[in-house]
């Protein structure tokens, strides 16, 4: 029998189905599951997001529909579906309707490569990490199309701002993503997780994790980078003309993207499903991944609800003058240190298969390098902050002088 034909496919063949048909059916079920899980997850996520935001802002949050407001999202969905579906007369009808679909699909497609457990995943692509970046670029495209097709100047202005933000922050995101790829020696997400058996990559390169975290917060358009939804500045942004479920799809995509990034960070830096007893059962492995992803997801919500929005020039300056050089330097230092240590024989040749003890010297050296960089960077940031403060004080003094004169 075909080697690829296992599990459900095998079961179907044994019960007398045609081999080709069985293969096709099992693939179909897999595709439906992988795309269906995020769709169901997002219903819960919206509730979680609203509840967490409410608690941080000292409110109760949704609490009327169902137990502790759990069914609130379903009620909202029915409301959105029953709303009038408005398409502006001057809009580009096809592109206007396609944009929300592309936006949502760009997030759901990421789930195709996410390994839930060592044995359960949509597909283990050789280029998994790159696939994630490539697919995410569809999200940028969707926003651009939505802004243009609405034929509304505020929508277009909003889209411009968002796209410049997304394109800029993709650079440090990819450089940070390269650190786990470099350490694992593979772009497949399954290999990256398996390579963390010895040591989690967050310990080997904490700076890469921080850069990834910050840029993914920007990629999802969350505070302090929430230019997408700058209500007070842009009316609403690129989605101003959208109503009903089409508007809802943009939002569902955003909520899901945040959680997806949490899961991705758990896979790339926190050892994915690794944890006590994970090899006992796929369910335990899945629970570990969910717990780690959920924890990172919670911190992003926390951050979103605590920090104020930055100005667009501050966001851009922070990216191009700080994050991009830092992410490049980080990668150069990691690869250089690894190569030197491998030549000296301190570090194992094959990091992916090394155990905890073999990796200890490598870990210590990389941690020291990361720590030194952090201290230097904090000093740099402090100096810049002081300069900015001094300038603003001088400007204020000059203004006061002018008023007095």
């Amino acid at each position: 029998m075909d080697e690829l034909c296992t599990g459900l496919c095998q079961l179907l063949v044994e019960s007398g189905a045609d081999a080709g048909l069985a293969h096709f059916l099992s693939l179909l079920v897999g595709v439906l599951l992988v795309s269906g899980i995020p769709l169901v997850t997002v219903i819960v996520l919206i509730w979680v997001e609203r509840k967490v935001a409410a608690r941080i802002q000292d409110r109760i949050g949704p609490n009327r529909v169902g137990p502790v407001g759990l069914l609130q999202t379903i009620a909202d969905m029915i409301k959105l579906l029953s709303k009038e579906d408005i398409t502006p007369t001057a809009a580009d009808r096809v592109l206007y309707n396609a944009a929300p679909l592309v936006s949502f699909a760009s997030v759901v497609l990421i789930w195709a490569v996410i390994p839930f457990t060592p044995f359960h995943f949509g597909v283990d692509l050789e280029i998994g990490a790159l696939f994630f970046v490539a697919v995410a670029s569809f999200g940028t495209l969707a926003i651009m199309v939505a802004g243009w097709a609405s034929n509304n100047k505020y929508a277009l202005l909003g889209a411009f701002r968002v796209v410049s933000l997304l394109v800029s922050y993709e650079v440090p995101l990819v450089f940070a993503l390269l650190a786990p790829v470099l350490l694992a020696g593979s772009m497949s997400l399954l290999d990256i997780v398996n390579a963390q058996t010895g040591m989690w990559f967050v310990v080997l390169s904490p700076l890469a994790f921080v850069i990834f975290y910050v840029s993914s917060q920007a990629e999802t358009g969350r505070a302090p980078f929430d230019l997408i939804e700058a209500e007070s500045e842009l009316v609403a942004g690129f989605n101003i003309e959208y109503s009903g479920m089409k508007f809802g799809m943009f939002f569902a995509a955003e909520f899901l993207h945040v959680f997806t990034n949490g899961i991705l960070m758990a896979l790339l830096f926190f050892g994915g499903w690794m944890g006590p007893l994970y090899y006992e059962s796929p369910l335990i492995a899945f629970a570990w991944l969910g717990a780690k992803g959920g924890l990172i997801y919670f911190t992003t919500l926390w951050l979103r609800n605590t920090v104020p929005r930055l100005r667009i020039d501050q966001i851009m300056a922070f990216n191009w003058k700080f994050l991009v050089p830092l992410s490049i330097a980080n990668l150069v230092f990691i690869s250089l240190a690894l190569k030197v240590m491998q030549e000296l024989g301190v570090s194992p040749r094959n990091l992916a298969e090394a155990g905890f003890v073999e990796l200890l010297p490598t870990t210590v050296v990389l941690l020291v390098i990361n720590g030194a960089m952090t201290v230097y960077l904090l000093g740099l940031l402090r100096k810049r902050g002081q300069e900015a403060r001094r300038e603003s004080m001088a400007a204020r003094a000059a203004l006061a002088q002018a008023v007095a004169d």
Partner: protein
Amino acid sequence: MELNAITIGFVVFTIFTLGGGFGVVTTRNLFQGTIWLMVSLFGVAGYFILLSAPFLAAVQILVYIGAIAILITFAVMLTRSVTRIKERYIRIVPSFIGSLLLFLILLFGVTVPIFGGHLPESAPQYVASTRDLGIALVDENGYVVPFLLASVLLTAAMIGAIVIARDEKAKGG
């Protein structure tokens, strides 16, 4: 040609590539033109998948759709009339001859050096992985010199672009 998944995929991606290209040259709307261009480029990415080169497919989508096409949309938005183009390009015969010549040059320029004038009976059985591609790019017996040269060229072009685009007044600061 037997009907299997690869054949169906080839047909679908050909429709994407050629249909997208057709859309680019026929639409009267520049923005829709760029979207058609993306459809066409997406089809090319599909070909790379069929040719067992997933890395190139991902790069195709990342670079061409994610970066270059977005850049083109930005440029298109800055042009004066995006949607209501009245002028029609009427010199059909010269452009037909030109495109035919270009097609023939590409056809022979690409196939002759690779296959030595005659097409091979079947594709080579060995399928290179992304790892092989990466090793070939940095191996001293492989393509390390062209790779480095291309990198230097791109860096020089990028620095050049920054220097040209730089505001004269900002130089003092």
